[in-house]
């Protein structure tokens, strides 16, 4: 994609993704060190990386277009189910999938080919669905993604022969490792940042700010949304595939509004306008969830606490609501992590202005 290098304080693909990947790498190292100690980090950290993939996918679409999508979980589901179809060992397949055709029953694919096919499946579905959805106006499209969520869940929960319905799928092989998940998370970061700094990304963001002005400036809002829709759905399907091969079993409820809400909360809390916001949101929510999960389990750092069912979800929702009321654009607001760092440096070394600062004095009337 044709990138536009902007000014000295540019949103620069290398700088943004470099810093973010660096942060992720530190987390990965922590994860690697905790391997073999039996700590729950061996589960939490890879899952965090997998979460990063879907949050970035959603940021790519919703953050840049301003259109909330409730429906990306449909593509995560496609990724997961296709992966199950391809990787569940043949011996148990016929138990799990009653109406599966025999050529699929015999399939036992490996990690990367499965991921590729699962991602393509999700991409194809999104390409078809997007033809209808992306032509709608913002609000109608958002409502339709909600409809898509319920439709997809209905299919997953009721197509018993191929999905085992509400009981869910099991038996997947553990192909995803800590470093595999890390690698895909880094891939997601690079894709997301590159998209945002490309021409299409710029046009899409323009459409978010003012769709009418964008059209009048020559932007095809429909086309920009469509490209983002398909690309983000591809990432979502990828996420589903990687996730399925880590968690080994799943059911349709994991692609329904509870999970969707959790991911959207991450975007809201961290700030949906930026990649860094997405990741930080994912981090905050993961840490918070873990703490609350321990509380729900009855103890926090060894202190006994009464069990409260649903505490995790409730606190998360409260935090989200508070952020919406008091800091509407999320923790990071409009600037990426590397831009905040530069802002901080400028504050320490005054003399030049950081990105986004108000102009000093009156801007001279020019031309």
């Amino acid at each position, binding site marked *: 994609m044709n990138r536009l290098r902007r000014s000295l304080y540019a949103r620069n693909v290398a700088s943004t993704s470099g810093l973010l990947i660096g942060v992720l790498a530190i987390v990965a190292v922590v994860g690697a060190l905790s391997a073999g100690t039996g700590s729950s980090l061996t589960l939490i950290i890879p899952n965090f990386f997998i979460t990063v993939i879907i949050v970035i996918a959603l940021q790519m679409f919703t953050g840049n277009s301003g259109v909330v999508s409730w429906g990306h979980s449909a593509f995560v589901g496609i990724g997961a189910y296709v992966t199950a179809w391809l990787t569940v060992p043949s011996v148990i397949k016929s138990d799990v999938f009653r109406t599966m055709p025999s050529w699929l029953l015999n399939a036992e694919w490996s990690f990367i080919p499965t991921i590729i096919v699962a991602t393509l499946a999700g991409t194809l579905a999104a390409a078809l669905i997007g033809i209808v959805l992306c032509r709608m106006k913002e609000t109608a499209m958002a409502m339709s993604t909600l409809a898509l969520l319920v439709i997809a869940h209905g299919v997953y929960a009721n197509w018993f022969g191929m999905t085992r319905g509400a009981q869910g799928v099991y038996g997947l092989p553990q192909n995803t490792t800590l470093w595999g998940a890390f690698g895909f998370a880094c891939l997601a970061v690079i894709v997301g940042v590159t998209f945002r700094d490309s021409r299409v990304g710029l046009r899409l963001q*323009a459409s978010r*700010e003012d769709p009418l002005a964008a059209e009048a400036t020559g932007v095809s809002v429909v086309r920009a949304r469509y490209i983002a829709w398909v690309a983000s759905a591809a990432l979502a399907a990828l996420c589903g595939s990687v996730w399925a091969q880590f968690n080994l079993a799943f059911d349709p409820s994991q692609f329904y509004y509870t999970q969707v809400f959790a991911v959207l909360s991450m975007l809201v809390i961290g700030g949906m306008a930026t990649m860094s916001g997405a990741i930080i949101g994912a981090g905050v929510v993961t840490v918070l969830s873990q703490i609350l999960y321990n509380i729900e389990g009855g103890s926090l750092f060894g202190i006994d606490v009464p069990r409260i069912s649903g505490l995790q979800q409730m606190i998360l929702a409260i935090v989200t609501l508070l952020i919406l009321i008091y800091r509407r654009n999320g923790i990071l607001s409009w600037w990426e992590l590397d831009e905040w760092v530069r802002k901080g440096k400028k504050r320490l070394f005054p003399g030049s202005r950081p990105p986004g600062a108000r102009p000093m004095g009156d801007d001279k009337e020019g031309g």
Partner: protein
Amino acid sequence: MADGQDETSATAAAQAPAATSHVMEALAISKHFRGVHALDGVSLQVAAGEIIGLIGPNGSGKTTLLNVLSGVYAPTSGKVRCDGREVEGFKPNRIAHMGVGRTFQNIRLFGHLTVRQNVEVGSVSGHESKGVDHRADVDRLLGRFGLTASADVQALNLPYGAQRRVEIARALAGRPYFLLLDEPAAGMNETESDRLLETIMGVRAEFGCGILIVDHDLRLIMRLCERIHVLAEGKTLAAGTPQEVRHDPTVIEVFLGDALKDI
């Protein structure tokens, strides 16, 4: 013209679109909204290099006409021709690709994008966007409009006058043949609108586009435009040179005569 302008006439000429006769026409445009006749059989024409003024009392249909020309509305009847091609009913971005740029009555910038990014959108989405050095173009436009210092400021943080300039720069970034300006002088005092006058004449000289300007500032319009088109209640009241329009009795009746006398 104030700071930042350092082009030679050679580069200015290289920037101007080919000096062929680009013409944009509105032919008997009518626009009805559920019983309200916003426009009724209005025709006008803008050619490359001309500056045409569009005036009339509030509600006379000026912005509606601009919206029809730029594709925001499809006319109920009538035709819009851009270089001979019928474009009425086309979506705004298609019309933009035929070389039409515009600004809006209530400034419509991409608020959270930086000034530079705003202009860049125009540059990469314009009708001649292949093979163009976008970065240089944008830099030049920013310099021309005195926006270099605030290039990386989010557009919504700019003072009003600067925002107007960003909007114009963005519209010009697409190298349009025609520029439609909707009340660019709104909220400006005499000094500011004098500068605007110079800016617009400079734009015409450098970029060679045909300019259609809607405004209530009659002093500005009379001094700027070669021809003026007067609308009232959706219909053409009068059209001609500023002199002709100024002395037209029906125009005087619609506008208070004194307003025109002072100019």
